[in-house]
């Protein structure tokens, strides 16, 4: 008889770039209640936004080169490493230039596949294959779920995830046309919330499958679902997000009472936060752990955002702290969700990360600190 395997999917290293800066800067500033949101207009649209702290990161190339040192790829097996590129639209500047001048972009085509190949080259990932995932604003979380499946099933020995989504005229005018943007800035779960705030974002993470050491952050489970309800709006009942969260807990072999905090999707649109509160209340009943959203500080960083936010959540878990929700002051949803208004201790060693996207897509990831 062989000893039972205690291997787990380990989040070895990660990095982010966003309005508050690097991962270290972002998490430290989040705990201080800082926000990267600045007043509009943004590409002519009367809305606040959260641009990259360093404007040079707005190009896919610079973002990839800046994030490359965040993970150590030197020991990865090029025959069994998968590279997963996650984005809703990615870097669409080439498409915009083509539409203005008729000249095709030189570095990479605006197709996500072309962006992925370009990023992989700059990151020097020794990968045997590239998978491009575009599950709207849940792309990064779906990528983590797929990476976990590939590692557990043995189809990969390590997985590098990279996500990039930048603010552009394309995205700004689109969200404005949908009347989804807040003029002054996102206020997740707040009674005065009036829409989302666009944010620039990029993230990188390295996942492996091994026996974890104490204090390692593991991707304990992941689940996803579709509302089957509306093209852009979330289900009014929160049923889809509830099912994704329950699937993630089931995948992790955990119960709701094991969760110490919830990293919400928390876009600050009226419907998303109302739906999410219902899903959370349905999952946890009367024992809802502290919940937070980073979108009042970083804005909504789209498909890359769900990867970026998982990296931020992992760092919060490592520090055993729940950050405040910037922009939140008075609860504006029907359920008694304990939205974190100030920095507080995380009392359990696990965190539930929720994401949702257009098309009714929901994704949930459970992070746990190994003991």
């Amino acid at each position, binding site marked *: 008889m062989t000893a039972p395997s205690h291997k787990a999917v380990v989040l070895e290293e990660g990095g982010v770039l966003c309005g508050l800066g690097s991962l270290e800067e972002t998490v430290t500033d989040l705990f201080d209640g800082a926000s990267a949101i600045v007043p509009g207009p943004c590409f002519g649209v009367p809305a606040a936004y959260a641009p990259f702290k360093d404007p040079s990161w707005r190009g896919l190339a610079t973002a990839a080169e800046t994030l490359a040192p965040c993970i150590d790829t030197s020991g990865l097996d090029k*025959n*069994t490493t998968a590279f997963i*590129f996650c984005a*809703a*639209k990615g870097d*669409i500047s*080439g*498409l*915009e230039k*083509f*539409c203005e001048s008729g000249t*095709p972009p030189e570095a990479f*085509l*605006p*197709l*996500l*596949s*072309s962006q*992925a190949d370009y990023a992989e080259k700059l990151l020097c990932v020794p990968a*045997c*294959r*590239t*998978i*491009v*995932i*575009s*599950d*709207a604003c849940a792309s990064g979380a*779906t990528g983590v*779920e*797929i990476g976990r*499946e*590939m590692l*557990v*099933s043995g*189809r990969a020995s390590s997985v590098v995830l990279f996500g990039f989504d930048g603010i552009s005229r*394309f995205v700004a*005018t*689109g*969200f404005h*046309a*949908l009347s989804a943007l807040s003029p002054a800035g996102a206020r997740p779960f707040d009674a005065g919330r009036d829409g989302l705030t666009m944010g620039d974002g990029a993230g990188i993470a390295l996942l492996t499958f091994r026996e974890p050491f104490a204090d390692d952050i593991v991707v304990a489970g992941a689940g*996803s*679902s*579709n*509302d*089957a*309800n*509306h*093209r*852009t709006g979330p289900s009014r009942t929160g049923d*889809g997000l509830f*099912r994704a969260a329950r*699937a993630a807990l089931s*995948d992790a072999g955990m119960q709701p009472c094991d969760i110490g905090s919830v990293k919400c999707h928390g876009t600050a649109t009226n419907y998303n936060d109302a739906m999410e509160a219902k899903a959370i209340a349905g999952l946890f009943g009367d024992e809802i752990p502290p919940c937070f959203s980073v979108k009042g500080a970083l804005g909504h960083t789209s498909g890359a955002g769900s990867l970026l936010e998982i990296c931020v959540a992992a760092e919060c878990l490592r520090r055993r702290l729940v950050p405040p929700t910037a922009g939140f002051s008075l609860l504006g949803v029907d359920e008694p969700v304990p939205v974190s208004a100030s920095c507080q201790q995380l009392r359990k060693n696990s965190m539930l990360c929720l994401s949702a*996207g*257009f*098309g*009714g*897509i929901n994704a949930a990831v459970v992070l746990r600190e190994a003991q």
Partner: protein
Amino acid sequence: MKRRIFIDSFGALLPEGIAGPSGTRPWDAGQAGPHDVRRDQVLEKPYVNFGKLMLPDKLAFCAAAAALSRYAIADGQTAAVTLGIPAGSLSTDLRFMESVRAGFPGPAVFSATLPSSAIADIAIYFGLKGPNRVVAGNAASGLTALELAVSLLETGKAACALSLSVNAVEAADAAGPLLGPAADRLCRAYAFLLTTMPQPGGLGTEMEASFAAGDNGAAHACDELYFTDLVRLLTAQKSGRVVAASCDVAATLSLLKGP
């Protein structure tokens, strides 16, 4: 224990017509191919959103309808949707940019500029509430979507999965220079209903699939070659083997005789 997986239905929009379990119906006179598909050719009842669907979404929806309009997924089954769409929503992106430049950006067109848009109406119309995987990678995106569908069934995260492969570039589209020299510019769409529990009246064709990392030296076999062979075998209800290799994924799929 490894789960047995069956292809229980399929639909395809091909240059020669609409293929499904009951055979291939040629395009009507005046229809040039998949991009001209009409709702009544794949779905008996009207669907209020059909006329608003952008090209990638329409092709995906119609392939799904060809596979599912006469197939009932059992109540309570978690039904996943996976989609491979190599060019993403490029055609729709250009339409949206046209509307931006005209000063009237369209909200409905904007929401369709996400590659995942193509699964939204399928999930809504057919009530598919399971996981979604949208692969917008290279020419073998459909193969990867099939691999991810098989993975969802093997892990038990879904009881059935509709796996789609859509190529939605219009021949006359201004997207030409943005696609690169190797791009496949023909419209096509395939949908395969994979399940661990075949239904009465379904094809019940058991499949065994293996996927591996591709070979950088391999020919860029694209989804078309692979799925055309697969449709041919399914239409003829024959056992057989389909092999594909691209730079990112190599796949071998064996069809066994039905239960």
